[in-house]
């Protein structure tokens, strides 16, 4: 069996003395959407930060496209093809939309105008406001800028930490549509979501995390159909 595109195996670690992750494994195939759900404090965001290298792992490894990247810094992982959208503070508020995208492409030395046009095609609402300061946009548009910024490095794996936190249901649907479009271009998506039900709808694979360890792993549809998961984590 071929190795999955991203394979974060048996991760253990935390910020202080106590571990937050207790043997968490996440894999994503090329072009797949993987969603991490779970109760508050289950270590969902921590797991994603561990994949991105913002947390020192005590045990376990992270492999991207067959290469072990466990020891790399987040910046180095960006160069390896990871894109990360933090949950908050994910834009440069006093810079224009266009400058935000430019900063996203900071590590690229080649011409990135094509990528920028692709981002604008993906997010037409944002394209109209390219000369406006990102801080003046609405919540949903800011998230689009944030995703667009991360796309500027042409990542092969895009990680989103609760992209729909604090946006209205309509905007959420819209964002999820865009994310599906991104995945169709062959980019793998790893996403942490509070809105578990809607997120699992679009998930190729879903991880239910409890206390820093995998509880259920299955396709999104299968998890949604599982009565046990529904009762415990999806509120009926």
């Amino acid at each position: 069996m071929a190795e999955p595109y991203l394979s974060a195996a048996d991760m253990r670690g935390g910020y202080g003395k106590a571990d937050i992750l207790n043997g968490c494994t996440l894999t994503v195939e090329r072009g797949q959407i993987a969603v991490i759900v779970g109760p508050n404090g289950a270590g969902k965001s921590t797991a994603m930060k561990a994949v991105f290298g913002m947390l020192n792992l005590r045990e376990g490894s992270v492999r991207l496209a067959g290469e072990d990247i466990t020891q790399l810094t987040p910046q180095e992982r960006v160069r390896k093809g990871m894109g990360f959208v933090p949950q908050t503070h994910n834009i440069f508020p006093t810079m224009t939309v266009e400058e935000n995208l430019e900063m996203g492409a900071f590590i690229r030395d080649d011409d990135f105008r094509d990528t920028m046009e692709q981002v604008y095609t993906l997010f037409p609402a944002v394209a109209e406001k390219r000369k406006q300061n990102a801080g003046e946009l609405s919540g949903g548009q800011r998230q689009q800028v944030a995703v667009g910024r991360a796309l500027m490095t042409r990542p092969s794996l895009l990680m989103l930490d609760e992209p729909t936190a604090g946006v209205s249901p309509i905007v959420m649907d819209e964002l999820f549509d865009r994310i599906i479009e991104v995945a169709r271009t062959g980019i793998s998506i790893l996403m942490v979501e509070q809105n578990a039900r809607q997120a699992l709808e679009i998930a190729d694979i879903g991880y239910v995390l409890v206390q820093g360890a995998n509880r259920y792993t299955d396709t999104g549809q299968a998890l949604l159909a599982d009565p046990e998961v529904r009762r415990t984590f999806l509120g009926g």
Partner: protein
Amino acid sequence: MDILNALVAILNFVVIPAAAYGAQLALGALGVTLIYGILRFSNFAHGDTMAFGTALVILVTWGLQALGISLGPLPTALLALPIGIALTSVLVLGVDRAVYRFYRRKRSAPIILVMASVGVMFIMNGLTRLVIGVDEIRFDDGARFLISVQQFRAWTGLSEGLSLRVSQALTLVVTALACWALFRFLNRSRAGKAMRAYSDNEDLALLSGIDPERVVRLTWLIAAALAVTAGTLYGLDKSFKVFNYFQILLPIFAASIVGGLGNPLGAVAGGFIVAFSEVAVTYPWRKIAAYLGFETDGLLQLLSTEYKFAVSFVILIVVLLFRPTGLFRGKSV
């Protein structure tokens, strides 16, 4: 005719001096605000960096004068300025390496960095005294006036005179050029945008692959260049005295806070707001009132010049009370 005389008097005693002083403050405040935006602390050593840089410029000016080099009608100090900037930059970068970098890596509280900057202030102050002494020094040479009072009276036939000193005109021109270059750099160049990005959102800038140490170095270089320029222009306009450069710290801080710490455009506006308030409040308006037909015994001076720093302070307090992030929305942390 009296209205014209009043206007000329206002121009001569308020607008021109305040504009020159405001430009000097703006350059100083730009440095403070950039350092705040990138390094996130109020640099108490900024006034003494200005003093040190100016002292070097004066030394080089003397050297050039001894060699018989001059710029004709312009002050020789202008020629010495790049050398002063270069030398000060070296010192400032060395200080960052030796002092601030340690706390930056440790992510110390901003107030610790403020404290360290006080230590640096002492050293810079001592160095300045060491190289040039504590006496008042005048170092502007070349032509003194662009427009002199006599010329102006002769041209216009007004009883009120107007003078524009070379140093004042120079201050305005140099400041305009410096601001133009700085804003062009910040808004157009990759490195400038990286600086703004780092100031906006440090973590995201790191994620985007912006090298923080490069940004910091660049910030110090620009701040040093602005500081030496501001200090030299201030010295040309008034005179050079070490202690005055410590005292100018307050109006500079006031200017950068009024404009919103971390906001360069705000710093420029803040510099002029502080300068115009200071001059307007300490200027005796009796003469102008007389031209307009109000004869009084009093000087019509709101505050004596000894209290000019109180003006900065009051502006500061008012801003802190009503709009702590400044008029142009600086950092709110």
